[in-house]
């Protein structure tokens, strides 16, 4: 097989950061190339350079042997290169068809006017490929999440008709928010795509990468540290190459299980969130870790948000430390000692543009001041510094902007915002590991485990069964907004993954 796309000594320098350091890479025809690495290792930057969103600071990129340089995604698309983004890149108030072709060179407009008929016909062909039955002129915000993900895929597949010859399709973490069936559908498409294109596939999940790829590159700190062919390697080796340490035993064992006879910290009775959750009942003891899991739309996230008071309406009874409470807003929850780490870190948890310290002290900083109103910057900095050390948050200083940290460190800083609170009794974590690489995930799990040992109650919604079983004392499975199964004492009697999955679907 000959090289379709080759990169030689590609470097990318952002102000103050060397994101990519002389990367060499080769993509052959009809192959799926896996790309793995920790957060901040430069995977996404590399994809963006190939996709024309960034331009390299140095080095050369060759397509079919001739040097190329893309000034924009449009130029890349003309050359047959398409990028499926890490997060959904569909624009809600445009139609499916408009979204499919927004980044493509098309002839669907004349003098700036759309020819909708042609565009919709072309769109229907693409939608058929991904077996999605929606009208092309449906606005995207009327679709479900999964439908949108399929549109996202169709968006790249539409390059097939528009460009002659062999394609390059880049997938930047496409699976992190997909269900197993959706992942299967995706993999089917990827295998079909191999007929006429080459694929680069990024994921944090080593088994996925190994399942789909013919070859794997490992990136670390902007460098290409290893290349392995399929069959030459296993997840443990890849993990070690990526993180630089052994995988086994990375999460501490549970030392003293929670005392179930102790007074309940939280008692949820008949919790109903209209359209999302129905009659959910469960208890959380002090020091207990309760894991919630279910497929998309099962309502696990809504349970968390209702406890924290950000669902628009909910009914049922919630008792907190023996008293009935009515939490209607986050500040009320915080007043009770409840904290919440939302799934949407960028939008809901982080104040971009502000420093790590400012982000950490926003909620409980005033506890370290005088009378709850006057602040003591000295004392709260000391406390923040303390948590930076305990959670091993990698930041140049407390005053570094939080959005310039890597995802894992951002998440730890968000977590420590709550840990600063001396009155915190219950922490609700909503997909806390989403977007984190395995190393960061293990660090975070150890921190959570440690907190539970210290008596903090934790409710969390996990991404994978693996992390559910690793971390939880109790697992609650939700299906269609109702509680379908409960597994107690998970750490002593581990439920099989099959049992959990059966309860989910």
């Amino acid at each position: 097989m000959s090289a379709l796309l080759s990169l030689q000594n590609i470097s990318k320098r952002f102000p103050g950061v060397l994101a990519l350091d002389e990367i060499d890479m080769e993509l052959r025809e009809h192959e799926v190339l896996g790309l793995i690495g920790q957060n901040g290792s430069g995977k996404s930057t590399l994809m963006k350079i190939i996709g024309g969103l960034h331009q390299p600071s140095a080095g050369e990129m060759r397509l079919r042997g001739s040097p190329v340089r893309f000034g924009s995604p449009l130029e890349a698309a003309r050359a047959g290169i398409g990028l499926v983004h890490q997060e959904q890149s569909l624009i809600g108030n445009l139609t499916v068809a408009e979204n499919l072709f927004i980044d493509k060179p098309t002839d669907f407009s004349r003098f700036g006017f759309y020819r909708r008929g042609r565009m919709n016909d072309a769109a229907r062909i693409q939608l058929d490929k991904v077996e999605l039955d929606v009208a092309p002129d449906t606005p995207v915000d009327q679709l479900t999440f999964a439908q949108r993900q399929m549109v996202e895929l169709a968006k790249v597949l539409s390059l097939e008709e528009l460009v002659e010859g062999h394609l390059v399709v880049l997938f930047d973490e496409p699976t992190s928010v997909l269900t197993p069936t959706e992942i299967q559908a995706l993999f089917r498409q990827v295998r079909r795509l191999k007929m006429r294109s080459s694929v680069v596939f990024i994921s944090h999940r080593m088994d996925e990468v190994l399942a789909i790829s013919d070859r794997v590159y490992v990136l670390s700190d902007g460098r290409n540290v290893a290349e392995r062919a399929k069959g030459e390697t296993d997840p443990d080796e890849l993990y070690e190459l990526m993180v630089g340490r052994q995988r086994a035993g990375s999460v501490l064992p549970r030392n003293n299980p929670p005392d179930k006879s102790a007074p309940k910290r939280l008692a949820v009775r008949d919790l109903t969130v209209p359209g999302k959750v129905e009659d959910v009942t469960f208890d959380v003891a002090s020091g207990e870790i309760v894991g919630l899991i279910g497929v998309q739309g099962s309502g696990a996230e809504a349970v968390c948000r209702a406890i924290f008071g950000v669902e628009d309406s909910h009914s049922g009874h919630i008792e907190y430390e023996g008293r009935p409470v009515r939490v209607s807003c986050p500040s009320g929850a915080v007043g009770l000692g409840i904290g919440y780490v939302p799934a949407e870190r960028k939008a809901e948890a982080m104040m971009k543009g502000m420093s790590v310290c400012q982000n950490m002290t926003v909620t409980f900083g005033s506890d370290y001041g005088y009378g709850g109103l006057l602040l003591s910057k000295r004392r709260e900095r000391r406390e923040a510094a303390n948590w930076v050390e305990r959670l091993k948050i990698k930041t140049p200083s407390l005053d570094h902007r939080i959005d310039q940290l890597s995802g894992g460190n951002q998440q730890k800083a968000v977590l420590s915002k709550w840990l600063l609170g001396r009155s915190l009794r219950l922490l609700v974590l909503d997909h806390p590991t989403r977007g984190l690489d395995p190393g960061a995930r293990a660090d975070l799990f150890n921190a959570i485990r440690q907190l539970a040992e210290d008596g903090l109650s934790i409710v969390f919604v996990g991404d994978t069964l693996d992390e559910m079983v690793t971390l939880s004392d109790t697992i609650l499975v939700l299906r269609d907004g109702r509680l379908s199964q409960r597994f107690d004492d998970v750490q002593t009697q581990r439920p099989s993954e099959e049992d959990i999955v059966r309860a989910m679907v």
Partner: protein
Amino acid sequence: MTQAQLHAHDTSAMASPRRGEAGTQRRSGHIGLGVLKSAGPIVSLLAMILVFASLTPNFVSVANLQAILESAAVPAVVAIGMTFVLVQGSIDLSGEGVASLANILLSILIANSVTANDLGAGAIGVVLATGLAIGALNGTLYAYLRMPSLIVTLAMWLITLGLAALLFPSRQPQILDSGFVGLALHKHLGLSALVYLAVALAFVAFIVERRTKLGRIGFAIGADEALVRLAGVNVNAYKVGAFAICGCLTGLGGILTAAQIGVGNPLAGEGLLFPGIAACVIGGTLLSGGRGGVLHSLVGVLVLVTLRNGLVQTGANPLLQKAIEGMVIVVAVAASTWHLRRKTRVVK
């Protein structure tokens, strides 16, 4: 393949709070006339008509409806232009200045009682081009220098108002071009050409908004500019385009005012801006962008014009009219966006 991992999932509405409103609001900007997503604005308008009609019988007379439409023509043209900027999530405050400048420029270029110029229809072209250029300049400063549109256009407001005053000759120029003034005078079915012009413009603007890249990408920019940039779209060009349209239509508003009053007045644009923005917002165009449109703004204009007309018709205390108008703006906007309320909605 052993699929050992299974992923728990959020509900679709939660998936993307960044586009949070999109999740809950199912029916949305879509081709066809059923585009007024919430009944709020229309209900406000009808309620207001009912109240006024019950207070004074003359209110629903043909003559009064004609009066309302005549008064709505110029604000409607300005609001249509403003809509293109607002759906992108930007704002243009320069309207009063641009309209005033257009008004005075036109009246000294067309046959008039003060200067010797007589460019005829060419004057209209020059003025429209000026409005377009000012709008494009606004857009360029905003998009390419990355300065907030509020500030850029605030400064442009002062600049254009100053230029209008500098252009004012020592006497008020009276427009002598009878064809031009006839635009406002000659009636067909009891309505002047200005009303028909405004309706035609609204139609064209609606087509542009729904059927062209400029219109559609404008909506997309308002919904999520970062994604549009990610798609490789030249966002800045579309921003400049929207501001240019706004500048041009505001200039047209100044021209139409000149036709109505028959003289050049360097303060002709006064009172166009804030009611114009209020009209758009009352109609359901969000200041944050991505939602609303030309038809919404037209309904908003009708709400405001009807209110003013009705207050005069019913003999409300003139001193309190501003106060009543202010209250109605707040109530109408709250009503038209009530269905969007969510705890996690951000309104600035």
